[in-house]
């Protein structure tokens, strides 16, 4: 009589073949259902050389998929230019992106926005928005793992030959049209579109009305609402992020007050890694 510890053997599977085509390999002891989810995600939202995909792809490569925390819906019809921004160490929310932020939380500050619960509470305090919770375990998660993202994005749409076009996205701003003759004078109301060159844009729904027949392209900035807030097991951020100092530097008492100036242990590690990969210094 003897006792043995079994050794695991990976069996080849059809999913392995599909994973290889998408540069995704099965992890040791990974369940096939989880592997299939990763392949499906890679199939529908494939990696590319954009920064967005650079932020998304490490999670799926490592087998730890991102979790949708909540969905922020704008319920006040007077809000036309909202914005939500997650940087390396801060969370911002604007009801009107042209003004100061309505919410500004530090993700590294235990008294401020350290936990996701703090962020959800701050969002819930705004009556103009509705927060739909998608992750029932959000109370147990740190907010420093939120995906770095900005709801403000740009897009270009082909305008169909029509007097009315609906753009792909809503909450549009800063729109530019390739035909300056059709889109000459913007009006505040659709009923004011009365002569050639007049046009009106419904900012919330992204509907473009014009007096003349539209054609060409529309390039615009939009705010991606309803907005999905993602929590990442593996987080990617830029080292030149505007708020990265809150993460990688300790404070020093400067003439202007307390400032984040002294590299902390995390920042030192990042800089050393950077120098290891790219050892050029100023003047070299």
């Amino acid at each position: 009589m003897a006792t043995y510890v079994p050794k695991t053997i990976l069996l080849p599977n059809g999913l392995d073949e599909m994973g290889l085509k998408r540069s995704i390999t099965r992890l040791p002891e990974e369940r096939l259902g989880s592997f299939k989810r990763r392949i499906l995600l890679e199939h529908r939202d494939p990696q590319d050389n954009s920064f967005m995909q650079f932020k998304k792809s490490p999670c799926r490569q490592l087998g730890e998929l991102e979790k949708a925390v909540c969905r922020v819906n704008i319920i006040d019809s007077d809000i036309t230019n909202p914005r939500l921004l997650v940087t390396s160490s801060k969370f911002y929310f604007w009801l009107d992106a042209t003004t100061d932020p309505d919410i500004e939380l530090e993700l590294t500050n235990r008294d401020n926005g350290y936990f996701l619960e703090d962020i959800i509470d701050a969002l819930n305090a705004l009556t103009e928005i509705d927060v739909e919770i998608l992750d029932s375990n959000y109370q147990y998660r740190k907010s420093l793992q939120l995906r770095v993202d900005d709801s403000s994005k740009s897009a270009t749409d082909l305008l169909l030959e029509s007097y009315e076009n609906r753009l792909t996205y809503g909450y549009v701003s800063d729109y530019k049209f390739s035909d300056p003759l059709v889109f000459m004078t913007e009006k505040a109301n659709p009923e004011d579109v009365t002569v050639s060159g007049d046009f009106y844009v419904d900012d919330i729904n992204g509907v473009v009305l014009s007096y003349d027949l539209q054609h060409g392209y529309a390039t615009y900035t939009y705010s991606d609402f309803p907005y999905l807030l993602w929590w990442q097991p593996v987080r990617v951020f830029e080292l030149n992020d505007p708020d990265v100092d809150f993460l990688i530097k300790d404070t020093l008492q400067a003439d202007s007050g307390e400032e984040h100036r002294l590299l902390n242990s995390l920042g030192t590690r990042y800089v050393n890694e950077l120098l290891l990969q790219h050892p050029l210094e100023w003047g070299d």
Partner: protein
Amino acid sequence: MSFRTQRLANRFPLWTKLRRDPSSFGSRLLDTFAEGLEEESITVQKLVESFYLTTRSLGKSLLHEVILEGEDIPERVATANGFTWSYPTIVGTLGVDTFAVTKVDTLTDLLTSPSTRVELIESVTSGDRTVWESTAPTTISQPQYPERLWIVVSGSTNYTNKTSHTDRDKSGFSTITIKGLDGEYQKVIDHVDIPDDGIYMSNFAFREVQRIYTEGFNGNCVVTGGPQDLEFEKDPFRVLVFDDMEGPLKLYLYQGASNTSFVTYKADRFKLGKQYRRPGIEVIEDTEELATFILCDEDNDPVEIVSIAVSPNNTFLYGISPDGLLYIYDHTLPEFVTPSVDETVQTYVEIHPVRPYAQYPDNLGSPVPEPLWTRYARLRYPINWIEIKRIAPDATIEYLQPDRITWNTTPARISYPTAGKMKLSDWKDFKFETLYDQLGAWEYICTTKTEIDTTVSTTTVICGSLQAVTAIDTGVSSPELIYFSDSGGLIIDNGTTAYAFNEHADVYIIEEETGHVWLSDGYDSVEVT
């Protein structure tokens, strides 16, 4: 007996006993090859589907290996006919639980053995799964959890056809389009072709449905998150073959009295013709029934089953009882036995049952006997008398009496008053009946006496049951529905909560010479004695 046996038999003329009687020697011989053919076709089908991301049978991802040492390695034991092996007893330990691991003979058995236990991994709120109905097109309810949507289309009288002069303004496509978010919140648009009324699945697992619209047909459409509790379960791996047609196997579950349940094997007989699903043309539902079997437990005692599903992983039929017991069936057609009497080379009168698989009385009202007919198949000589003997599964021998209705243990002959002087055409085939109140093979032996010789023909009718391979307590109270998820996971739903289970099979194979053991399931350690 394989479903495919009849397909091979259909290569023979319709009049041959091989083709029309599955109890015949010829049919049983063909079954040897058909069983292998059916296994191979199932394997091929699963293999082909395994290269599609929508496959529900993900297969097995891991095996677990142990190399035995010393006296644990099997030893040869000499026998009168050569030698055999003394196999070890293996017990797997997982945490504080121990599981006896059973030896199987082949790699196929190792990979597709029926489960011996299940493990609850998740439970989610279920409730009403209806997402959308064409009768209320503006109302959309969200799926309870990400799952491929089931689309049931029924009652259509017209499918638009661009080549028809009445439909030229249409695209000619019949589709349902679903917009929404998949399980990972990716925006997806799913176009599902609807070539005819039936049941379809969306290509994506939807977490959120935003819009649904249909085109090209006028029937009712119901979309649900996950399966609908339909009156039948379609077996995706097997084909039901009759002596003149074949079609996808549909399993109908119905409840008998006294807590019994039955499964009926049916297939649709489709009509040909270009006027199908056109205005003014009534579609005739035509379903052929091959057999009805009572569902039993491992001891072949009847059990009540509330829902059935065919596993995409091992192709077994799963049934769940009201008390949460999971019964697993290796569902196929029953084997016919060798008749107790040899047929003579020449046979004249034969016995033809209405169907070779009789139904055990379900006691819903009066038990209904099933008819059989005599058939003077080969007109050779005038008949003096015939004797019809019946051997029940409990070996009771009875004879059909001259009244052609009653059965008695007293031998009896059915003769003609003008025996010896009659013409061939004087013989009139007749109907008689049997109440199949015992499970098993019912044998009929027909002895025919003519002026020249005495011949014997035999046939067998099986009153069948599906005997469970195993029964597992799931702990789910009052289950209503059993199904498999889009990744082949076992789900049991009791109307309010859907329980997801992992299946485990405690089996192993062993390479006797080297002592290599491969286990289907993983354990912290295994103890070998």
